[in-house]
């Protein structure tokens, strides 16, 4: 028994009994400890999130009060981008672009996956650290570098990239077509290439750790749903980010080296007829959305995994339909690769192709629905503890329902003709990403804060934060559906193009007010988060009475190597909550089998002697070849 446990501990290139001396630099800066790296991801994600949110408030000011000038705009942005306190139309586009880029990639991918995969995979799987702590550290620093580059790009003279976060060429490929497509766009590409590096390094680590380094007894079916979610998220990222890398490389070449992969038949005002010929902007769209669609599932799957865990723990009930949940995750992950065309229904694609994408897009609604029903069934007949984490998880389910249902309209190619690139789409993706996924992140932060910092966040502030954010978020995004149905396109600097759009002025004011209040509510969170690190109430070892392994690792010391002695062995699934016949309403995974194991409600008899599945004679291909060539007699 202990031999395989020892086998686990010698995986790492560094001493894992905490004996080596750590300087400030190795402990806090270039740390290779997954818990510290997860905090680094979290804090960078939060900082970038604040920056992205600030941008949204700035451009919401413009949308609500297009007639007015705001001194604050000129103070913050200078007289070039906000002359006389009125936001410049080109810079508005830059704000929208950077807001989207930051939120999608830096907050919801790195800040969500990066934080929680790093924190929970080793702890919940029962491993000392990630498979390669060094690569893990690199993954964070690539992310940091990427953030710095993107933030810097906002302040350069010609302005940040401004062609939307989707940066379609030719607009993004031709510096003369808009100011932001110059240096700003180059920096955006550099930032994204660094980010992709970070994502790949991280993803390889997560997959390997989940496959190779689960502790004894932690079969795949005994993994918490968080790990299933992070595992498939990492696979999604692994296979889709490279395609964006390829697409971005081609864009770099088009911009700087005169190639014509995406450019053809262009006459630019002020430049004349360009020589590029034979390229296709649609190729970029295909390559971009091949990442772009899995990307949004990379965003939502971890949030859903976190929700599964938090709802189960706080309802004191097993998650309903564990197997169905796993199959849904796998189904969503697989299907997400074959639906990217639904972002391109109106590009003039072959209608047959449109048909295929529509069918698969609507199919993907089925596993999403199954997950939602499972959450509801978990709440039913539960004993619900309203921790802030639980509230955010419930909020996620609400947003997921609202946002997911509008996806069904958009997935229908015919209806999409009318709604594409209108505010209806803006409402849809903000509800599922900007609300549901962010709530998943918040839920995770509140729930695992004791695991990160050994203290709990202030509950009361947490409740205020939740209700304020939840209500204002709905107030911001619900009216946008109707704006879309009124034909108002997105990415519009102001609504003055048609007199009938003027009717939405007051609605814009309402939305902006709600957004400002929502933004201010985040101050409650920020204060809570940072002050609790130092002054928060010290937490119990297992404050939420959870079954999973991360709560068996000592909280106070934040031990390098996670467990002071041997890694615990796992004997049961993680959802034994309120099991009849027991005093406690939870049974941690480490509690041995007492003959009453009932996981997945199938009775589980341990075979007396597990058959060995290691073949007796292992001959490697290289040996065979060498023998054949007479080079080896082995």
């Amino acid at each position, binding site marked *: 028994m202990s031999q395989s446990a020892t086998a686990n501990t010698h995986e790492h290139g560094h001493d894992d009994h905490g004996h080596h001396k750590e300087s400030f630099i190795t402990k806090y800066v270039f740390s290779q400890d997954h818990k510290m790296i997860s905090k680094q991801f979290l804090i960078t994600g939060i900082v970038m999130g604040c920056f992205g949110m600030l941008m949204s408030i700035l451009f919401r000011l413009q949308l609500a009060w297009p007639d007015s000038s705001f001194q604050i705009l000129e103070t913050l942005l200078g007289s070039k981008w906000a002359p006389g306190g009125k936001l410049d139309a080109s810079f508005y586009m830059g704000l929208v672009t950077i807001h989207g880029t930051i939120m999608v990639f830096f907050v919801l991918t790195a800040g969500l996956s990066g934080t929680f995969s790093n924190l929970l995979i080793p702890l919940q799987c029962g491993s000392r650290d990630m498979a390669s702590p060094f690569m893990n550290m690199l993954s964070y620093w690539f992310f940091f570098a990427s953030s710095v580059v993107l933030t810097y790009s906002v302040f350069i003279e010609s302005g940040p990239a401004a062609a939307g976060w989707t940066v379609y060429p030719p607009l993004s490929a031709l510096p003369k077509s808009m100011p932001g497509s110059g240096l700003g766009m180059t920096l955006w590409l550099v930032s994204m290439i660094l980010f992709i590096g970070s994502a790949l390094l991280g993803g390889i680590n997560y997959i390997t750790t989940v496959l190779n380094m689960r502790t004894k007894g932690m079969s795949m079916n005994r993994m918490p749903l968080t790990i299933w979610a992070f595992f498939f998220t990492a696979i999604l990222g692994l296979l889709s980010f490279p395609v964006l890398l390829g697409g971005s490389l081609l864009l770099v070449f088009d911009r700087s080296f005169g190639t014509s992969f995406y*450019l053809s038949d262009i006459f630019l*005002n002020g430049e004349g*007829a360009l020589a590029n010929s034979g390229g296709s902007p649609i190729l970029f769209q295909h390559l971009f959305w091949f990442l772009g669609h899995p990307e949004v599932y990379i965003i939502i799957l971890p949030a859903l995994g976190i929700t599964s865990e938090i709802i189960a723990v706080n309802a004191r009930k097993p998650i309903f339909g564990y197997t169905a949940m796993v199959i849904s995750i796998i189904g969503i992950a697989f299907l997400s690769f074959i639906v990217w065309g639904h972002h391109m229904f109106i590009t*003039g694609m072959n209608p047959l192709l449109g048909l295929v994408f529509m069918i698969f897009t*609507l199919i993907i609604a089925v596993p999403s629905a199954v997950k939602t029903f499972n959450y509801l069934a978990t709440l039913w007949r539960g004993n619900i503890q309203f921790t802030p984490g639980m509230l955010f998880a419930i909020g996620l389910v609400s947003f997921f*329902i609202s946002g997911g249902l509008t996806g069904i309209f958009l997935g229908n190619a015919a209806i999409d003709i009318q709604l594409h690139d209108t505010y209806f789409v803006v409402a849809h993706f903000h509800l599922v990403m900007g609300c549901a996924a962010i709530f998943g992140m918040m839920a995770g932060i509140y729930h695992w804060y004791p695991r990160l910092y050994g203290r709990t966040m202030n509950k009361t502030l947490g409740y205020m934060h939740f209700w304020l954010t939840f209500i204002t978020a709905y107030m911001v995004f619900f009216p946008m559906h109707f704006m879309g149905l009124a*034909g108002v396109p997105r990415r519009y600097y102001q609504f003055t193009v048609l007199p009938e759009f003027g009717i939405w002025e007051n609605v814009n004011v309402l939305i902006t007010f709600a957004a400002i209040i929502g933004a201010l509510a985040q101050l409650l969170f920020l204060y809570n988060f940072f002050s609790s690190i130092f002054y928060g109430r010290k937490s119990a070892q297992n404050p939420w009475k959870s079954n999973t392994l991360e709560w068996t690792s000592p909280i106070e010391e934040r031990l390098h190597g996670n467990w002071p002695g041997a890694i615990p062995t796992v004997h049961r699934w993680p959802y034994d909550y309120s099991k009849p016949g027991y005093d406690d*309403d939870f049974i941690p995974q480490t509690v041995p089998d007492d003959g009453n194991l009932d996981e997945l409600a199938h009775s589980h008899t341990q075979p007396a002697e597990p058959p060995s599945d290691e073949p007796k004679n292992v001959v490697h291909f290289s040996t065979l070849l060498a023998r054949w060539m007479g080079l080896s007699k082995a």
Partner: protein
Amino acid sequence: MYKNLSEKFKKLVLISLAFLAINSLNASVIKESISGKPVDDVTIAAGKSLFEGKCQSCHALNNKLVGPALKDIHKRRTYDWLSKWIKDNEAFRKSGDADAIAVFEKNNKLVMTSFNDLKDDELAALIMYIEDASAGGGAKTSATETPTVAVAVDKKIESRVNWVLICLFALIGLILFLIVKIIEQVSTIRGKDVIDWNSVNAKICLAFITIGFIACAWEFAVHGKWVLPEAATEHGRKLDQMFNITLFFTGIVFVITEFLLFWFAYKYRGREGNKALYYSHNHKLEAVWTIIPAIVLTVLVIGGLKTWNSITNNPERDKNNIEVFAYQFGWTARYPGEDGKLGKSNWNLISNDNLLGVAIKDQAENLIPVLEQDIKDFEIQIKALPTKLAELKTSLGGLVDDERKSHLDKIEEIVSGTAKAELEKKITNRTIQINRIKVSLETENAATFYDQTGNDDIIINNEIHIPVNKTITFKFRARDVIHSAYIPMFRAQINVVPGLATEVVFKAIETTKEKQAKLNRPDFDYWLLCAKICGAAHFNMKMKIVVDTEAEYKKWLSSQEGAFVKKQEMPTENTNQKDTIQKSLVIN
């Protein structure tokens, strides 16, 4: 482009009278104009329609949009200066006019479209309109305008409101903070939570869903009324029906699931003595709620398939073609002339005389010397770079702030080699363009490409007219970047991509007038908008589409003239114009 000056002018008057029906005609307030032409309401109205058609996408009178505000421009610039700038600002800047260069630098170096085809009296009308509107005459042109007075007032109110709001929030924040502290203290003293948070939150959940549903209903009732009116096309109605069916199903799911979510949260809130039920799965139930959504979605898929197919697979496509050309930042339409065929086109043939690059042999032949002249001019500029550098350096002293900065930027451009590289690139592009045009004129396909079908094409800049109850195919082309042609009232949208030919096929079933009557809104119109981010003035790219009865349409069409027809015949007075055009095309 048009027969002669007075004919065109008469046409303008006719068009503007139509506009006048919509915009009430107020008496003009100015007495004289810098253009030197006599002031009258008709000219001003014509100028207004020109402004709306050509200027409004980037300019407003009272505020900066993409370009600067134009109010009182006549007080800042001479008529001659304005004339040169508007007709060809690039050539004007290249000629060295300091003011022109300054304006360019100040507006983010965005290149303004050249309006070389404006006749002198059109230009006069335009300026006259601006003069008049600046002085307060006439009705508001459109929503891009923002009243100057209001800005000042708003700003004041804004400032006061801001401070009030900030203090209010600070106060609320303080109160919240105190509440939290008090609750905490009491709980610590008591040893347990003073407030039953489970109960509180559960009750708020219940309140939330109740109020939430009411708010939802309110939204549908109020904002729901502001959505688009009934579609004006055949397929549009089918699309709306598909939408309604989807709304029906998703609406039911929405109500049931959101309700259950918050109801369960309330009902099963944690309290003393409550124990959860250990219930991990139920295969039958799971099967049911997997199969039912699958069935509903299948229904939606089939409905969607049928609607999508009917839209994209219209057998009547390609029968009545109208080309719609997208560019930064406007739309132009091209109608086939009497031959019923649209001429071929190529981006290498685009020029100030041929803004859509239609394949017309002598247009193409005439373009070659223009481009060759461009190349010569670029070469001269390259040679002159050292001199320019010296000039800039000597004139640097004494400049401050923005001017100094722009000087330094220019110096940097030359020193770093960027200026030279850019000019060389332009020379390369022009060379390749010339070669391509030459090849097109010399290959065996020249006769097919330069078939005369384009010679009689009609180019429309202000509003597209189409006949009702006829299947029309809009053929789209883009000049520079991806745009998206979005016609909300027709339920039509398609990307317009440079290098790719896209189209929408539809049949309008309600004329504009019918719709106006039905909606009781005499100012209602069908509009074409841009729905794909395309640059600075993306939000202002529009073109009106008028659906006429067959008779009205025929009448309208017959009063339009071919864009190139008269160019061939070129009477003497227009030859001068051609030269002027050529001269002002000095650098492009």
